C-alpha cells in the first residue's frame, strides 16, 4: 500500500515541481532549520499576532521574573551567608511586602490577559470560509478531501521514506501528497479521525486541532505567503506517530487552479469519494 502510494507521490511531485516552480524569493520554507531557537516562520495574521504576543509580552515578562529570582538568590547567598552574616535576623513579617508580591503578579497577569483573550477569540471565531477542506486522520496517514465545488476528490498523504526523498526535501516530515491551498483565502479545515486521536498541526499557521473519532473539529487559516509549510501529528497515536507528516503547499490562485485541474483527474480515478456525502464518523 505504502509503496504504491509512494510511487504515485513521486510522479505527482514531479508534476507539481513544474506547476509550483518557486518564483524567486516568493516561496517560504515553513519548516524547522538546524540550530534555530525561535518560532517557525509565520504565514497567517494570527500566527504573526501569536508570535508578537509571545516574543514582545510573555517572553520579556518570564525572562524578567526568572532573572529577578536568580539575582535575588545570588545576592542573598553572597550577602547573607554565615560568614558574611553570622547573626540571623528574626524578621518574619512585612505586610506591605507580602501585599506587594501578591498584587504585582496579579497586575502582570491582567496585562498578559488582554492580548491573550483577544487572540483567543480571533483563533476560535471562524470567519465565513472561502473553501472548506476535510482532514481525516487514521493510523498512520492523513486524508485530505476537497468539496464538490473544487471537484469533490480526496487523497491520502503518506510519509516518504528517507530513500525516496528528492533533493531538498527534509527527512521524516515530508509527505508524498501535500494539502494544496490558495493564498489569501479563508480556509476552514474540518478535522476528524477514523481510529485513535491524532492532532492536525501547522505551526506556521498557528493552528493545532485534535482529530477525534466521533467529532468534527474545526479550525481555520488565511495564508499570506506562498511556500511549503510543515507540521506533524501532535498526539500520540501508535507506533508510527512520528511518521505522520503534514505538508501544506500555499499557491497563488492561478497555480492553485492549475493544480486543481490536474488533481481532479488524478484523484478522481484512484479514489472516488464525495466528501460531502462521506460518512462523518467511522468509529
Amino acid at each position, binding site marked *: 500500500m505504502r509503496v504504491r502510494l509512494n510511487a504515485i507521490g513521486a510522479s505527482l511531485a514531479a508534476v507539481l515541481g513544474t506547476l509550483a516552480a518557486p518564483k524567486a524569493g516568493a516561496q517560504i520554507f515553513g519548516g524547522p532549520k538546524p540550530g534555530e531557537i525561535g518560532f517557525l516562520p509565520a504565514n497567517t495574521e494570527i500566527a504573526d499576532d501569536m508570535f508578537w504576543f509571545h516574543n514582545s509580552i510573555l517572553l520579556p515578562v518570564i525572562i524578567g521574573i526568572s532573572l529577578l529570582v536568580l539575582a535575588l538568590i545570588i545576592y542573598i547567598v553572597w550577602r547573607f551567608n554565615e560568614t558574611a552574616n553570622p547573626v540571623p535576623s528574626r524578621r518574619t513579617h512585612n505586610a506591605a511586602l507580602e501585599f506587594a508580591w501578591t498584587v504585582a503578579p496579579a497586575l502582570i497577569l491582567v496585562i498578559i490577559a488582554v492580548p491573550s483573550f483577544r487572540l*483567543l477569540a480571533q483563533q476560535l471565531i471562524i470567519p465565513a470560509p472561502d473553501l472548506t477542506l476535510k482532514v481525516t486522520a487514521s493510523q498512520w496517514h492523513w486524508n485530505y478531501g476537497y468539496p464538490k465545488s473544487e471537484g469533490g476528490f480526496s487523497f491520502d498523504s503518506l510519509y516518504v521514506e528517507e530513500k525516496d526523498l528528492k533533493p531538498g526535501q527534509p527527512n521524516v516530515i515530508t509527505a508524498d501528497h501535500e494539502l494544496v491551498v490558495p493564498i489569501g483565502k479563508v480556509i476552514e479545515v474540518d478535522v476528524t479521525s477514523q481510529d485513535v486521536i491524532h492532532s492536525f498541526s501547522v505551526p506556521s499557521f498557528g493552528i493545532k486541532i485534535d482529530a477525534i473519532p466521533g467529532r468534527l473539529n474545526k479550525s481555520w487559516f488565511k495564508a499570506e505567503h506562498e511556500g511549503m509549510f510543515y507540521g506533524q501529528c501532535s*498526539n500520540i497515536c501508535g507506533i508510527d506517530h512520528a511518521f505522520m507528516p503534514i505538508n501544506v503547499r500555499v499557491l497563488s490562485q492561478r497555480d492553485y487552479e492549475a493544480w486543481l485541474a490536474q488533481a481532479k483527474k488524478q484523484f478522481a480515478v484512484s479514489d472516488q469519494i464525495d466528501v460531502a456525502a462521506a460518512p462523518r464518523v467511522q468509529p
Partner: protein
Amino acid sequence: MASVTDFSHHGVDAHHEHEHHIPTGWRRYLYSTNHKDIGTLYLILAIICGLIGTVLSILIRAELMSPGVQVFPWISAIMTGDGSADAAKNMYNVFFSSHALIMIFFMVMPAMMGGFGNWMVPLMIGAPDMAFPRLNNMSFWLLVASFLLLMCSMFAEGSPGMHGFGGGWVLYPPMSSQVGTPGPAADFVILSMHLAGASSILGSINFIATIFNMRAPGMTMFRMPLFPWSVLVTAFLLLLSLPVLAGALTMLLTDRNFHTTFFEPAGGGDPILFQHLFWFFAHPEVYILIIPGFGMVSQVVATFSKKPIFGYVGMVYAMLAIAFLGFAVWAHHMFTTGMSLNAQRYFVFATMVIAVPTGVKVFSWLATMWGGSLSLRPPMLWAIGFVFVFTVGGVTGVVLANAAIDRYLHDTYYVVAHFHYVMSLGAVFSIFAGFYYWFPKMTGYLYDERLAKWHFWVSFVGINLAFFPQHFLGFQGMPRRVVDYTEAYAFWNMVSSIGAFIGGAGTLIFVYVLYDAFKVKRVAGANPWGPGATTLEWQLPSPPPFHTWEEPPHILGDEHDHAPAIVGHGSAA
C-alpha cells in the same frame, strides 16, 4: 513569645522498650505497622523505581541523540526477541509511557508522601505513630503489587504482535481501548493504576486522621510545621481526585472487556469525556507531586537560614489556594480538543490565577533567606536550586496557560521542557533536599557532604542542559513522544542527550553517596544541623528509637500567636 517544649517525659523510655517486642527479620518489614519502617520501605521502593525510571529516560535520550531509530531495535530485541523496526518504535512508546508512570506513581509519590510523610509527620507533630498502622502497611504493599502489574504490562501483548502499552501515561482512549491496544498490556496498566490509587487513598485517609487527631498537646494547626501542612493538603488532593480517576479507569476497563461504550463514539460515548475525567484527577496530581516538596523546601530553607519561615500563615494559605485552584483548571491540558471559546476563556483565566499563590511561595522562601545566616550544606543547595528551577518551570507554565499560545506549543517539546523543569528538576530537587536533610535523622549516619555537593552540581548542570534546549525544539515545532525526527532538530537533541547523560552520572554519584554513608558510618548525633533545626524530630536521637513520642511532648506558647517563634516551625526556643 517565648516558647518551651517539655521533654521531661517523652517516649524514649526504656520501660516501654521492654514491654514491646520489636519484630526482627523479614517479619519486621512485611508485617510492619511502624511508621518509620513503612517509611523506610517506601523510600527503598522510591529509590529502586527512581533508578529504573532513570534508566528508561537515559535510553530514551540515547535514542533521540541523533536522527534515525538506532537504539531501540537492540532494546526491543533484548526484551522481546523482536528487533524489527515496528517492534523498536513500539518499544520506544512503551518506554516513555512507563517512564512517566514509574516516575510519578512509584518514585515521586512514594518518596514524598509514603517515605518522608510516614517518617516525619508523626515525629514532627509529636504523635506516637500513624492513626491506622495496619492500613499503613496495606497502603505500602498495594503499591508494590501495583508496580509489579505495571512491569507485567511491559511484557504483555499490547498492539497486535507488540509488547507493552505505548499510549502515554495519560491513557487516552481510543489508544488505550480495544481500537488502539487490543492486548492485555493496557488492562495491566489500568489495574496497576487502580491499585496505586487505592494505596494512595488509604494513605491519605491515614495522614488526614493522624494530623487532625494526633497532634501533641499545644500543637495547634497554625503551630504545625509546613511539611505536615503540605502532607495534609496533598492528602486532601489525593482523597478528592483519585476516586475520579478510579471511575474513569473502571469505565475504560469495562469498555475494553465488557462491551460498554462510555468512551466509544459508535455507542454514543465520547473519548473526550475520558480526558475531562482524567485531567480532573491528573491536574491535582501534578500538585500532589510538588506540594510536599514545598513543605520540605520550607523546612530546609528555614533550618539552614537559621531563621523562621517568612510569612508562615501566607505560606499555608498559598498551599491551600493552590490545592483549591488545582481542581478548577483541568481542561487547560485540552485546549486543542475543540472546546468552546468560553470554556477556553475560563480555563485560561483560572490557570493564570494559580501564578499568584505560587509567586507568594517563591518570594516567601527568598524572604526567609533574606537576613538569615545561610549555611550552604547539601540540603540547602538542593533547596536553593529548587527555588530557581521551579521558578523557570513556573513561568513557562504561565506561557502555556494562554490558550492562544498553547495552540502552538501544545504537545511539543516546549511542554516536555516545562513539566520536567517543575518535576524532574523541581520535585526531584525537593526530594533530594529532604533526603539529605533527614538522612542523618533516619539512619543515624552523616553522608560525605563533599560528594553530596558534587551530586547537586553535576545534576544541576546535567538536567538543565538536558531540558533547557527542549524549549527551542518546541518553538521549532518538534512534537513530543516521537521516536525519530527530522535532521533540523539534530543539534539541540544532541545537546539535550549529553545533558541527560551528565544528569545520569549525577545519579551514580548519589548511589555512591548512599553506599559510602552506610560503609563509613559517620555518627550524626541528634541534630547535625545546629540551631536552625527546631522542629520536633531533631529533639529525638538519630536514628530515633522504634517507638517515639509514646508520651507526647507539650508544645507551649501563646494560643493566638501565629508568629513562628514556636517549637514546630522555626524557633530556637
